[in-house]
């Protein structure tokens, strides 16, 4: 079915497999729809891929299958009422979502957070980073064909962290734990010791994982030099998080903004050299090692005291008219919340800056010229969660 359709129309239709004659040459291009049910797309995400043989010529991501207009819902809800909904954005990292939103409201209303709550926030955010990065590495290897084993090793560790979340917040994934001006409750007795045990055991998992996989020949062949993201493009396209640092840009919001109490801890920012998929994998392993360091310091120094500002008002919070943008270094990149208040009980405008949505901007640039099998691996290294991409 060779049709003279102009190539500009490619990627505009949905759900079709179509052949188009190659411009100015022999042969045909094939347009394939990868997803939304493809197992490698990590949710309902679709890519319209135009192929020349097995090579990618063009790739258009298609979103919106999980869109529920979170922002509009939040405009009709009180400030506190949106807190549990933020869990559902990046459902792997509800603790960091809570923190970013709490930080934005605290900026908007000028609230302060007690010392112990700040420590709890850092501990929970770094635990979130550990379990997110561990599962990402597992999923990435699963995408490469290492069925089961790496993912199950990662999930074994994740399970321990989720148990901690359950003990402190009552929920494993939808934690809904942070509040404006602190945290919902203090850690139960013995929780900090349990957290210490999990953190102290984590480097052994990393050593085991690395011994099995980091220098594996197949992994190196499949990832090195694949999906290279140049430094300048990464900055211009607003790529953040481990992806940006894998391209060699030293920009970590924990160091730049020093929100919370991150200026009290000693940790390093690992940087990549090549910006390829292997670097993105390695950065996550190294970041987990740094997170363990932060956790050990925080668990050592955490002071006793209240976890909520007694003056903070949760129900019926009405910030003065104005606006605030607050951002944190979530495991996937810069997670920002932009709030406009008109003095009412609901935000006038509520905006989420989702890191994995904006990190997808460069997907086409990274995939062009690579094979279909590589697209799966490159997408896996971006680390997307559709709850956040589509909102």
């Amino acid at each position, binding site marked *: 079915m060779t049709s003279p359709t102009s190539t500009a129309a490619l990627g*505009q239709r*949905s759900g079709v497999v179509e052949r188009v004659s190659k411009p100015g040459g022999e042969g045909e291009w094939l347009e394939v729809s990868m997803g939304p049910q493809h197992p490698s797309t990590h949710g309902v995400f679709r890519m319209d891929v135009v192929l020349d043989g097995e090579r990618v010529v063009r790739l258009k991501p298609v*979103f*919106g299958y999980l*869109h529920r*207009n979170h*922002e*509009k819902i939040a405009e009709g809800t009180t400030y506190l009422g949106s807190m549990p909904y933020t869990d559902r954005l990046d459902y792997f990292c509800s603790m960091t979502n809570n923190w970013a939103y709490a930080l934005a409201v605290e*900026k*908007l*209303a*000028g609230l302060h957070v007690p010392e112990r709550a700040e420590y709890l926030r850092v501990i929970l955010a770094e635990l979130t980073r550990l379990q997110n990065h561990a599962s990402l590495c597992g999923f990435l290897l699963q995408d490469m064909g290492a069925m089961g084993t790496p993912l199950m090793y990662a999930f074994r560790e994740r399970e321990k962290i989720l148990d901690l979340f359950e003990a402190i917040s009552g929920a494993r994934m939808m934690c809904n734990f942070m509040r404006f001006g602190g945290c919902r409750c203090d850690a139960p007795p013995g929780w900090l010791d349990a957290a210490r045990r999990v953190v102290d055991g984590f480097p052994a998992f990393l050593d085991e994982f690395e011994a099995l996989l980091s220098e594996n020949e197949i992994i190196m062949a499949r990832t090195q030099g694949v999906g290279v993201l140049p430094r300048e*493009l990464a*900055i*211009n*396209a*607003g*790529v*953040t998080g481990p992806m940006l640092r894998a391209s060699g*840009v030293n*920009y970590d919001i924990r160091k*730049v903004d020093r929100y919370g109490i991150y200026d009290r801890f000693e940790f390093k920012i690992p940087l990549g050299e090549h910006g390829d998929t292997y670097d993105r994998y390695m950065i996550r392993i190294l970041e987990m090692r740094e997170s363990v360091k932060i956790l050990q310091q925080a668990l050592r120094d955490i002071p006793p005291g209240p976890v909520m500002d007694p003056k903070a008002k949760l129900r019926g919070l009405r*910030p*003065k*008219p*104005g*606006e*605030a*943008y*607050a*951002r944190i270094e979530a495991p996937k990149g*810069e997670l*920002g919340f*932009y709030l*406009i*208040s008109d003095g009412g009980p609901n935000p006038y*405008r509520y*905006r989420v*800056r989702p890191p994995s*949505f*904006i990190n*997808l*901007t*460069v997907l086409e640039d990274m995939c062009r010229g690579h094979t279909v099998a590589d697209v799966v691996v490159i997408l896996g290294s971006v680390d997307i969660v559709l709850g956040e991409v*589509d*909102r």
Partner: protein
Amino acid sequence: MDTLEQIVARARAAVPGAQVTILPNESPSGQHSLLVDAAHALALARWLRDDPDLRLDYCSNVTGVDWPEVERVEKVRVKKVVDGAETEVEETRKVRSGGYLEAVYHLYSMHKRHGPVVLRMRTENRADRVQLPSLTPVWRSAEFQEREIYDLFGIVFEGHPDLRRILMWDEFKDHPMRKDYVEPDDYEWEPTPHDAVLAKARKHFTPTTSSGA
């Protein structure tokens, strides 16, 4: 980083004719913003990115805000001469504001590690003059986010390389993030065959007039 006033003064010198004003923000966050006119926005954005002292190379957040026209009643104290004596009288007057869509850009510098500088642009109205220049040629990170604004708010970004709906489906009409958006009673509703649909259906299912054949 320079203060906002210094940035405005230098911006006016660097981009002649640009109208840049500071919009104060009274919340404790203290993030004031710069309002720029649509005609000079692209040149100004380039200057903000390339100026050696600012180097705002990273456009973090791009979003839209809908400001429908609202009428507020304000009470103002006015001095008036009543019966030869000057007295203060309270008068009410109506103030109209809004009636435009706004695009907001949060800019940071990865190189100099400062920010944010908040940039705003406003459309002329909310109905037919909703064009703004796209800043995607300056910052690629605006590409998907401007598409999202076009989809949910209905601002048309001129010069955007690929302006299509992104979250809603292509056939969707309206812009759901507008304040006056009314959602349909039932998204799942499908018309039973009538009018054009019925005519089309009849074409396919014409009962054969002559039997046999």
